């Protein structure tokens, strides 16, 4: 156990340190004053994010159980940044909350699980990290203890994730039975494609698809998103989804790499179903959070296009799109949270006349929605473009056609929100939403991210070089 250990596991160790600091602040009654405590936590989160950029090395630990590489370090930086932005944008809400230390302890434990999940090189580690990443998030969904919707959302979340991970575990046990090992690298050699292994793969795929809310397994998503407190919804929609898409990509490329002929078909079918059903269900919704839930389901389908292309270009476009998705989604959820916690309104129709008194917030929302829809000046366009070209390089033109036609459908419900805010008249004025400076910082960073990542081609090239270096 030398210095190497500390350098390789730096992101996880920093997070563990953060959790301990918060716990001791709670025990020593330093968290009595909510304002001071939040300043402390947010400063630490910013420092944690900055520290993620230094001293990254590639290597393995614990005889292959823990793997880290440059692309994984970058993925962890995206998660760190997203977590920081969500924490900043939730500042106004957290100020009025009781039990803020518990909120951050649960949140950061979940993030610790996600980091281990990204770095896992063994199915034991994979399973433990996945549970650590999901159980605290279910508890967080119940954070508004007095709101019945919140506990209903938490119930649906814990039940569906427990069921999904149980199914996945059954698949893992069959994989263990056919190969006799749990290590990713060793298992990859021993995967032969026998019918028992195909069954095991389907179970494992179902488990991950539940977490990613791909279509046959998406039914929990909208309810959980609607009921949870808005910052928790943002964490579920952005951070959790980002983690699982990275993990899905790495397991498909390592453990199930020899299985390509099988999983390619499964993934293609679920892309078509996910994009189509996600978009068409989003059209029907009236609640803002439910629209965003179904739109996030559809976005997952687009991300899978990049995964399914099995090329360096595909992998880097997944990372690039996820970066943009973090920026645009956090901006949208920031505005949705401000509206919900100050006026109690959460329907698309309630947004009528929003532009009159809240000009800047309307523009923030519009730019972020354009980015999700993939309209050119924003980065979302380039994200979708790279994903689609990587899919085209592989040549699945039916899937591509479905994906492109669905982008037109998605414009309908994104623009409906914009239309409600800017064009629709209402009898009584929408009150002015007050925004505190810290929340403004978060929103400005997000919008700058949405616009600047699209303007400079540097970012994509940088991400691509990460993958080229590790091959």
């Amino acid at each position, binding site marked *: 156990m030398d210095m190497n250990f500390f350098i390789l596991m730096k992101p996880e160790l920093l997070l563990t340190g953060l959790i301990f600091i918060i716990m001791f602040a709670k025990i020593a009654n330093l968290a009595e004053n909510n304002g001071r405590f939040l300043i402390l936590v947010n400063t630490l989160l910013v420092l944690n994010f900055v520290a993620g950029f230094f001293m990254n090395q590639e290597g393995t630990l614990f005889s292959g159980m823990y793997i880290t590489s440059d692309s994984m370090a970058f993925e962890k930086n995206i998660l760190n940044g997203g977590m920081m932005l969500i924490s900043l944008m939730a500042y106004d809400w957290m100020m009025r909350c009781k039990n803020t230390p518990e909120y951050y302890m649960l949140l950061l434990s979940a993030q610790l699980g996600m980091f281990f999940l990204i770095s896992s090189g063994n*199915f*034991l580690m994979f*399973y*433990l990290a996945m*549970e650590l990443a999901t*159980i605290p998030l*279910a*508890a967080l969904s*119940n954070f508004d*203890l*007095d*709101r*019945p*919707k919140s*506990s*209903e*959302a*938490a*119930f*649906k979340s*814990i*039940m569906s994730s*427990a*069921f999904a991970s*149980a*199914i996945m*575990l*059954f698949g*893992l*046990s*069959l994989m*263990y*039975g056919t190969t*006799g*090992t*749990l290590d990713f690298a060793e298992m990859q050699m021993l995967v032969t494609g026998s019918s028992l292994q195909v069954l095991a793969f389907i179970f494992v795929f179902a488990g991950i698809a539940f977490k990613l809310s791909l279509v046959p397994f998406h039914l929990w998503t*909208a*309810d959980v998103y*609607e*009921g949870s407190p808005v910052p928790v919804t943002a964490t579920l929609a952005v951070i959790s989804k980002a983690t699982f898409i990275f993990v899905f990509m790495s397991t498909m490329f390592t453990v199930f790499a020899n299985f390509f002929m099988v999983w390619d078909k499964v993934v293609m079918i679920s892309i078509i179903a996910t994009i189509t059903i996600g978009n068409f*269900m989003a059209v*029907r919704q009236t609640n803002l959070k439910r629209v965003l839930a179904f739109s996030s389901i559809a976005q997952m389908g687009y991300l899978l296009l990049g995964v399914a292309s099995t090329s360096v270009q595909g992998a880097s476009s997944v990372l690039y799109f996820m970066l943009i998705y973090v920026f645009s989604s956090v901006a949208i959820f920031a505005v949705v949270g401000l509206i919900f916690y100050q006026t109690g309104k959460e329907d698309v129709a309630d947004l009528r006349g929003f532009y009159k008194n809240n000009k800047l917030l309307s523009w923030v929302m519009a730019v972020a929605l354009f980015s999700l829809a993939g309209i050119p000046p924003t980065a979302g366009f380039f994200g979708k473009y790279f994903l689609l070209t990587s899919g085209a390089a592989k040549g699945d033109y039916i899937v591509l056609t479905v994906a492109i036609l669905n982008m037109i459908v998605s414009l309908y419900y994104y623009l409906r929100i914009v239309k409600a805010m800017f064009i629709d008249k209402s009898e009584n004025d929408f009150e002015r939403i007050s925004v505190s400076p810290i929340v403004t910082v978060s929103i400005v960073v997000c919008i700058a991210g949405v616009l600047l990542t699209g303007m400079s081609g540097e970012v994509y090239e940088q991400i691509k070089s990460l993958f080229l270096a590790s091959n």
Partner: protein
Amino acid sequence: MSDIGLGHFLIVSTMLFFIGIYGFMTRRNMITMLMSVELILNACNINFIAFNKFLFPNQLDGVFFTLFVIAIAAAEAAVAIAIIINLYRNRKSIDAEDADMMRL
């Protein structure tokens, strides 16, 4: 009568697995749904132990995995029951059919 072999264990675990899935899909009491999930997890445990004992007797991966699964199942049940208690305080019911404030 032949000796009890791997096949017997696998039949038991597969039956447990599907009983668990059936229970999760049909039972409407929240605690019973939780118990069904525990059945599925136990089916996985039997699988791991049986594979380890019969196919790979010179290593302990499966046994260790089982220990971790038992611990995780306890943690999951603790969080789930806490959530169910809170739901009961808000609703005075632990029937899954009553948790219907949000609909498609």
